[in-house]
């Protein structure tokens, strides 16, 4: 090829009996944005890890400007101008932005580090691409979106000409995502070449010049963005047509959970301000809002990990005071935490161990863990929830992001909880998996589970929830019936525009 800066040709990679990449070829031109689209576990991260030298391919090669890159050498990849922004960031929380960016670039033999020059270079890059961050801020104090900006800056600082972003928007709020794509387009205009991984059809269509679809480790299609549409891509990605399910009418049962006037402060900051909500068996209550408005605290409150300052919590008709974690588990509250990697599963432990940890009494006798029962239980979850790429004894960390989510969901739903707390349950999932997760939530609703769905995805909440409340800055709006609102009204609610007096009081 003549003007390709990057050529990947015939790359294959096998993990055990799992062919993660099967003879994949792709090329990338100067100033081009290519999207790598594929289901969870399709092999996207693996392919990019090969490009970056983290994995050695079983066969095939990577060419930069026609020069073959030695396999398995991240240093050579960096020197050849490849920059990578990982799915999970690799920055040091205790260092400043500038230190993080400089780390690894300076020769160890130089005694004095040339901070002034580095600062100058960083500021030049910052302004050139509109990636504004304070070079002296401690990384740990930055928001996720800002940390990502630092990752990008670090790659650019190392003179990257090819930038790879692995699911860059999975951790971002919608606003941050839009901003990121604007930046990426600017960068392409400046002559950089970009590859980003995603399974969100909207952003792929909006941001990419060309779209490459992976399925089951194979490249199944390649389309210029102009010549395709979301429906076609969805079908290519999953291999069949998918449609997200929508809730059917039903009559909810008893009130399972009632929260009145509860306030919660964390480290002296009031995170929840006198909130009211009431959740009935067999219904889904959607809590919508931009991330960071108190959703996390609400989830923690109901899973028993934070204490309230005032207000009442009534569970199945009985006042409970503060919920404890054990109390929540015993009461049958299942939880799908928002922060999967930190709170949802223990990556270093086996799938089956993660599956039984929450219910050890059931899987142990005389202090001994019943391994075979635990493994059978894990296998049941794997089968029922279509967790791909792992057996009960596999280390959980080796699952792809989406499959880990299915595992957590399965662990919670398989026992038919009475209340399910689902925080951003579909975040980071591909279309097929989203549909599957939604179907599971609706199934739980049919089974009489009271579901509290915390989400920032309007479409998701409107399709699933019976009633919707908005959370803004720690306050909860009154509930509105889902069939009486539209996107505009919800948008206003998310912006904090609700009028308490004039609200149609909803039937309880």
């Amino acid at each position, binding site marked *: 090829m003549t003007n390709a800066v990057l050529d990947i040709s015939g790359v294959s990679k096998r993990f055990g009996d799992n062919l993660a990449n099967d003879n994949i070829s792709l090329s990338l031109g100067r100033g081009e944005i290519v999207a790598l689209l594929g289901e969870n576990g399709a092999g996207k991260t693996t392919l990019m890890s090969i490009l970056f030298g983290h994995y050695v391919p079983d066969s095939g090669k990577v060419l930069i400007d026609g020069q073959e890159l030695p396999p398995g050498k991240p240093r050579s990849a960096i020197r050849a101008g490849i920059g990578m922004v990982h799915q999970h960031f690799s920055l040091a929380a205790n260092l400043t932005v500038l230190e993080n960016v400089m780390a690894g670039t300076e020769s160890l033999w130089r005694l004095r580090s040339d901070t002034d020059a580095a600062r100058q270079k960083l500021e030049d890059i910052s302004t050139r691409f509109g990636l504004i961050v304070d070079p002296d801020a401690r990384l740990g104090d930055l928001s996720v979106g800002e940390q990502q900006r630092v990752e990008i800056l670090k790659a650019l600082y190392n003179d990257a000409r090819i930038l790879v972003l692995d699911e860059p928007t999975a951790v971002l709020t919608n606003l941050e995502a839009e901003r990121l794509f604007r930046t990426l387009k600017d960068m392409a205009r400046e002559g950089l070449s970009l590859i980003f991984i995603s399974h969100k059809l909207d952003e792929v269509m909006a941001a990419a010049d060309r779209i490459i679809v992976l399925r089951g480790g194979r490249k199944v299609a390649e389309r210029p963005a102009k010549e395709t549409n979301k429906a076609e891509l969805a079908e290519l990605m999953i291999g069949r047509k998918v449609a997200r399910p929508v809730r059917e009418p039903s009559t909810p049962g008893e009130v399972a959970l009632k929260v009145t006037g509860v306030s919660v402060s964390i480290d002296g900051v009031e995170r929840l301000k006198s909130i009211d909500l009431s959740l009935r068996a067999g219904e889904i209550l959607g809590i919508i809002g931009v991330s960071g408005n108190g959703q996390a605290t609400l989830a923690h409150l109901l899973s028993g*990990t934070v204490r309230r300052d005032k207000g009442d919590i009534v569970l199945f008709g009985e006042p409970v005071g503060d919920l404890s974690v054990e109390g929540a588990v015993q009461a049958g509250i299942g939880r799908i935490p928002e922060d999967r990697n930190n709170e949802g599963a*223990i990556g270093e432990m086996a799938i089956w161990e993660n599956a039984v*940890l929450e219910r*050890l009494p059931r899987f142990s006798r005389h202090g001994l863990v019943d391994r075979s029962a635990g493994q059978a239980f894990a296998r049941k979850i794997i089968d029922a929830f279509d967790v791909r790429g792992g057996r009960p004894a596999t280390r959980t960390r080796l699952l792809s992001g989406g499959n880990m989510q299915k595992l957590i969901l399965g662990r919670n739903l398989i026992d038919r909880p009475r209340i399910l707390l689902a925080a951003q349950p579909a975040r980071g999932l591909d279309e097929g998996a989203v549909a599957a997760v939604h179907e599971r939530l609706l199934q739980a609703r049919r089974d009489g589970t009271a579901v509290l769905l915390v989400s920032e995805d309007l479409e998701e909440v409107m399709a699933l929830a019976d009633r919707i409340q908005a959370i803004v800055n720690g306050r909860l709006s009154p509930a509105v019936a889902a069939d009486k609102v539209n996107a505009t009204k919800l948008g206003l609610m998310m912006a904090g525009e609700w009028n308490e007096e004039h609200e149609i009081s909803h039937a309880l």
Partner: protein
Amino acid sequence: MNALEFILAGMLAAATPFLLAALGELVVERAGVLNLGVEGLMAFGAVLAFIVVYHGGGHLLSFVAAGLGSAVLSLVFALVALGFRANQVATGLAIGILGQGLSALFGKTYESLTVKGLPKLALPWLSEIPLAGRLFTQDIVVWLSLAATLAIWVMFAYTKVGLVVRATGENPKAAHAIGYSVTAIRFAAVAFGGTMAGFAGAYAAVVYTPLWADGMIAGRGWIAIALVVFGTWLTGRIFLGACLFGAVSLMGLAAQATGLDVPSQVLASLPYLVTIIVLGIISADRRLLKLNGIASLGEPFER
């Protein structure tokens, strides 16, 4: 007795102080805590045990006293490092120095005094095997340490407690979110580690070399910590490492006995050198270290 017989006979006893202390530290680290005070905890246990035996309290009571004493001292560490979330490395070092200081203070009037050790028990049948039979004539503490090794292996592989301790070390946030008290588990682990270090010190002072000399632990606590890392946090490997170390430390003595003309300091440092090299080679597989390393080791837990 030739050199090989000598080493076979003494290896397990020489390994026991390392083994007991390392097993304790293994549990502590698996729970995500780094306690570098092992040396001092051992020294403190050693002096308590020696005093008890010297005044006729008997060996059983001496081990109880050493275990309790070192456990209490390790709880001071826990209080500062876990309760107040102080830096674990600094706190561990400080507690270690405190333990060594207390040991020197209490042991002052006992310097160079001796007590009686423990009789050796020969296992029937096994101890009659030529050569290898030497391995099977040991004191009761050695047999109990082997049992403890097995018990800890079983604990991590098969029990509820083991699973919960590992979960706490690997991901305290997740453990907390599913209802385990990270702090309580870590306190318990530290107390267990302290008790084991106390036993290790007691064994050194009233069984292995039943003579009091200040500084008699002589770096064995540090070796125990190194064993945990070199053993890549696996019980079996730690046991093998302790045996290896026991054997090599006897080689020096064996060599001296044969009258080799080498300065004794060189002989004395040889075992450390050899062991570090061998263990270094064993654990050269970085993947193993990374795979078994404890994710939250040494980090304070904040909700």
